[in-house]
């Protein structure tokens, strides 16, 4: 808790952050789709289309297979809750949030891992072969992204002097810590970017728009879901994407974030945040058009590269002390 | 010796191969090529004699400002280059002509051969006389480049394979040596501060005691591993047997006799400087250890060879290892024995490869089993083979016996340097003698099998005396002569050089 902060203000800030995450995430997905459409010389659906999709899904009645267990129905809620909680741990528009005492970067990674774990189980739960295939592929990708992510986090934490996300962002925004050590910083950024692409199921690791079951990873796990469950899962994956983009934007380039709680600083922080996230969404959309999806055993090469970049970032911290 | 004469001699040393190389490219007709070759080699030998006398008088010679530095150590190497070069040039006179006559190579390629040969000589001379360690490195790398195509000269598949392996392995090794030179420069800059002269041997020798020991230790390790690849020390030796087998006989003679010696020279120069900064026991131990391992391994490989050129290649590794042991153990006897061994080995090995070349030309095979009865088929070559084989097996009265005895004496009296084994341990000497016996057995068995016996049916008998036999007689006489009585000036040269190595 931030000392001397009135409880009302703290609760308001937490709620505001949650609202921002929930409301902006479908727009980000819509923005990426729009960018891809434009680059492919199509008009494409509007940016606000995902909102309409979510609205449609929540109104529909879900259909459940009789072979599923409680895991199947509980997973959408668990995934949604863990993703939103992870999102609350990252500074979004203010660098010192009331929940920062719990904002340990390792907690962040493993909250997301909790959601992924249940999603893998749910994919297996329905008993269909495509679900099982998606789950096993997701497990492969997860086992490779985790070391890379942790290495990158160690590199960041060492240069910033703490594993608390809030502290890292605050110090970097004030031009201490990471900002004075560019080489490990950049290696970790490259590694986290590749890991973000892998974890959120973007090309070149997984194609989110594919209709072929044999090429699916994330889509295969949610293949059996319908109605509000599917809506929750889609929303959760959009929030996960936004959370990763927030991580990249605010940990590696947090300048513009609000370091105090005046209304002006907060609004500037929010505006800058939206611009940064939109820019990253543009970048991802362009990358999705530039590369083809990799075959699964090539994904291991790519994630190996991410791991090595993170390892290099760590080594550079020790080697290049200047 | 006036300064003028020395400068003239040094410029002759460097210009002779350069001019001869350029001339070889344009001249046509093999007779002119040979004439150019012999003239330039003659000039080289003459210049060396002059410089050796100057070194005796003054101790060391510098010329062209600080670019060239020659002392007793360099003089020995120059003498080896000159003598073996002369022998090879005489041998090439008959060897190459026969290859052209048989249609193995086109006459035009003879120009290329001589051009590369002279560039090779130039690079080796430059490596020996250069004052700057960096220029020395550049010259040794240039020898690699010049000899790659010489090794692959016959353009057979195996030759290309050997040449590629040689190029890659030696270049990689030399890159490591360059890193060592960079580290040397690093350490000397901190003391000297002057940028352009900090790699000069003259400067380094003066400030060697002030160099930082950590950096110099690391630098010496890199330089040793790098140049050791060129010398053919185990485990960096894998290019050596293939290269020597596939190269034409005179090229193999030059490689075995001279190039390895120049690489040893480079290591010794660095060692001379490193010994003042790091303890001589560390560098000596490194040299002796690798030398011993090379000697032991090569001895066992000699036992199982069935290709006589490969046999001589492994014998090269063995003798270089022995010389390294001598230098590693150090002291007056060890260093003297080492230098003497380098000279003797150069002569014996070239003699061996000349004989091998003749055998190959007549018998058209490199298998030992198929070569028999040399005394009837090629009498002169049989004598040469016998002399070189017995010499390489370190039999008296040949000179290699003397130098090997000296090295073994040094080893048994002082043992390997403290850092690497327990003092007073007899194990190294026993190992050395044992492997010596193994090598002796292997060589003798193969050589006598080739020399005696009844010749195969369809081989032409008889050997005509030609220019190519002069070097055989020369080298053979020297091998026997040195074993019985070493000329005074050589003894003084060796003593001066070993004093240089031990005056720390």
């Amino acid at each position, binding site marked *: 808790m931030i000392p001397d902060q009135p409880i009302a203000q703290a609760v308001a800030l937490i709620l505001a952050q949650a609202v921002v995450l929930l409301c902006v995430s479908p727009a980000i997905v819509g923005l990426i789709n729009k960018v891809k459409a434009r680059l492919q010389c199509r008009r494409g659906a509007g940016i606000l289309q995902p909102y309409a999709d979510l609205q449609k899904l929540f109104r529909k009645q879900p259909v459940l297979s009789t072979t599923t267990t409680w895991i199947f129905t509980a997973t959408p809620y668990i995934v949604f809750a863990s993703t939103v909680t992870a999102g609350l741990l990252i500074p979004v528009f203010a660098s010192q949030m009331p929940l920062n005492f719990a904002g340990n970067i390792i907690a962040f990674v493993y909250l997301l891992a909790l959601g992924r774990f249940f999603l893998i189980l749910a994919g297996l739960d329905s008993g269909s072969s495509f679900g099982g295939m998606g789950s096993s592929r997701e497990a492969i990708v997860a086992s490779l992204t985790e070391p890379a992510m942790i290495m990158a986090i160690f590199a960041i934490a060492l240069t910033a002097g703490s594993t608390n996300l809030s502290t890292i962002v605050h110090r970097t925004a004030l031009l201490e810590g990471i900002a004075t050590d560019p080489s490990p910083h950049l290696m970790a950024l490259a590694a986290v970017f590749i890991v973000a692409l892998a974890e959120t199921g973007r090309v070149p690791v997984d194609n989110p728009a594919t209709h072929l079951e044999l090429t699916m990873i994330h889509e295969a796990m949610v293949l059996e879901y319908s109605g509000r469950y599917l809506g929750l899962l889609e929303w959760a994956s959009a929030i996960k994407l936004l959370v990763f983009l927030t991580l990249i934007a605010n940990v590696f380039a947090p300048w513009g974030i609000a370091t105090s709680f005046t209304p002006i600083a907060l609004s500037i922080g929010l505006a800058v945040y939206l611009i940064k996230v939109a820019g990253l969404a543009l970048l991802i959309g362009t990358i999705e058009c530039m590369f083809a999806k990799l075959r699964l055993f090539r994904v291991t090469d790519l994630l190996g590269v991410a791991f090595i970049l993170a390892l290099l970032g760590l080594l550079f911290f020790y080697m290049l002390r200047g | 010796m006036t300064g003028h004469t020395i400068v003239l001699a040094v410029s002759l040393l460097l210009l002779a191969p350069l001019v001869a190389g350029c001339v070889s490219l344009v001249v046509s007709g093999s007779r002119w090529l040979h004439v150019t070759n012999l003239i330039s080699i003659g000039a080289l030998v003459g210049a060396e004699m002059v410089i050796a006398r100057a070194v005796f008088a003054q101790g060391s010679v510098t010329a062209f400002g600080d670019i060239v530095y020659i002392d007793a150590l360099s003089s020995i190497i120059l003498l080896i280059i000159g003598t073996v070069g002369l022998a090879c040039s005489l041998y090439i006179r008959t060897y190459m002509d026969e290859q052209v006559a048989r249609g193995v190579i086109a006459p035009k390629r003879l120009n290329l051969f001589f051009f590369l040969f002279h560039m090779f000589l130039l690079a080796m001379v430059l490596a020996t006389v250069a004052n700057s360690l960096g220029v020395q490195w*550049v010259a040794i*790398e240039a020898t690699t480049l010049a000899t790659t195509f010489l090794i692959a000269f016959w353009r057979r*598949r195996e030759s290309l394979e050997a040449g590629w392996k040689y190029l890659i392995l030696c270049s990689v090794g030399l890159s490591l040596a360059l890193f060592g030179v960079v580290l040397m420069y690093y350490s000397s*800059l901190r003391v000297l501060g002057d940028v352009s002269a900090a790699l000069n041997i003259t400067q380094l020798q003066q400030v060697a005691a002030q160099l930082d020991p950590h950096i110099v230790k690391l630098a010496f390790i890199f330089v040793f591993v790098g140049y050791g690849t060129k010398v053919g020390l185990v485990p960096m030796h894998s290019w050596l047997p293939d290269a020597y087998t596939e190269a034409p006989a005179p090229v193999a003679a030059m490689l075995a006799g001279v190039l390895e010696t120049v690489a040893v020279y480079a290591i010794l120069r660095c060692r001379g400087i490193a010994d003042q900064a790091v303890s001589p026991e560390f560098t000596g131990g490194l040299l002796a250890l690798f030398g011993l391992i090379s000697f032991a391994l090569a001895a066992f490989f000699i036992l199982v060879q069935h290709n006589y050129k490969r046999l001589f290649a492994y014998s090269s590794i063995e003798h270089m290892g022995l010389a390294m042991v001598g230098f590693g153990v150090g002291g007056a006897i060890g260093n003297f024995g080492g230098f003497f061994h380098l000279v003797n080995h150069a002569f014996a090995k070239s003699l061996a490869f000349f004989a091998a070349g003749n055998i190959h030309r007549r018998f058209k095979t490199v298998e030992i089993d198929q070569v028999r009865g040399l005394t009837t088929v090629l009498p002169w070559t049989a004598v040469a083979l016998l002399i070189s084989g017995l010499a390489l097996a370190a039999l008296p009265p040949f000179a290699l016996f003397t130098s090997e005895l000296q090295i073994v004496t040094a080893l048994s009296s002082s043992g390997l340097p403290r850092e690497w084994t327990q003092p007073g341990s007899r194990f190294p000497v026993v190992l050395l003698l044992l492997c010596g016996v193994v090598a002796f057995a292997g060589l003798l068995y193969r050589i006598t099998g080739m020399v005696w016996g009844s010749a195969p049916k369809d081989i032409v008998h008889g050997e005509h005396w030609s220019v190519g036999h002069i070097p055989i007689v020369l080298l053979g006489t020297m091998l026997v002569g040195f074993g019985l009585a070493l000329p005074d000036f050589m003894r003084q040269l060796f003593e001066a050089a070993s004093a240089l190595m031990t005056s720390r």
Partner: protein
Amino acid sequence: MSWLTPHIATQIVDFGSAMLLVTCFAIVAQRRLSACVDLFALQSLFLAMTAALVAFFTDTPHIYIAAALTVVVKVVVIPRVLKSVIERLNVTRELVMNVNVPASLLICGALVMIAFFITEPIIPFGHLLTRDSLAIALAIVLIGFFTMISRQKAVTQLIAFLMMENGLFLGATAATYGMPLIVELGVFFDVLVAALIAGIYTNRLQDAFDSVDTTRLNELKA
């Protein structure tokens, strides 16, 4: 320039060397030969830039000459020679490697750590702003050495050798602000001739063996 404190200058030079090391890893992770050649050209460009930065920060003009030579020889001439060799031989990818990509990346990471440990005792003695780059230089040399062992195509082995030379040049620039000019010229000349010779060689290899796969070069045995 008052903002150009020695600390910032060190950071910039370190960043240049870090980019060099990253291109090394990129070459190791690559399967396409023409991409390897392009990455090598990029690496040499980074090298020239780092050398020029060192020359700028420390007022040693002779490094500019070496940097310019690097650009001419290693960014323009040698990649062009290699590209023509690749075209003539019609080899495009490294189909089988002795060590697969993730494992070789990990080994290269370990080599970086080894290089750091080897040079750690001598780095504090440097008072120059580039002393950290000595560890990176040794790492590049070791990675080039490893690549040479683990790859089969003759062209890749040649690129690995040239990478080692790049590392050595970085080491010379970092530790000693470049070698004496005549030595630099000699080294460049050697590297150029070595590349040309190897280019001719791969041609001959192709003619003799119908491939430049060096695992076919196994006819000579102990």
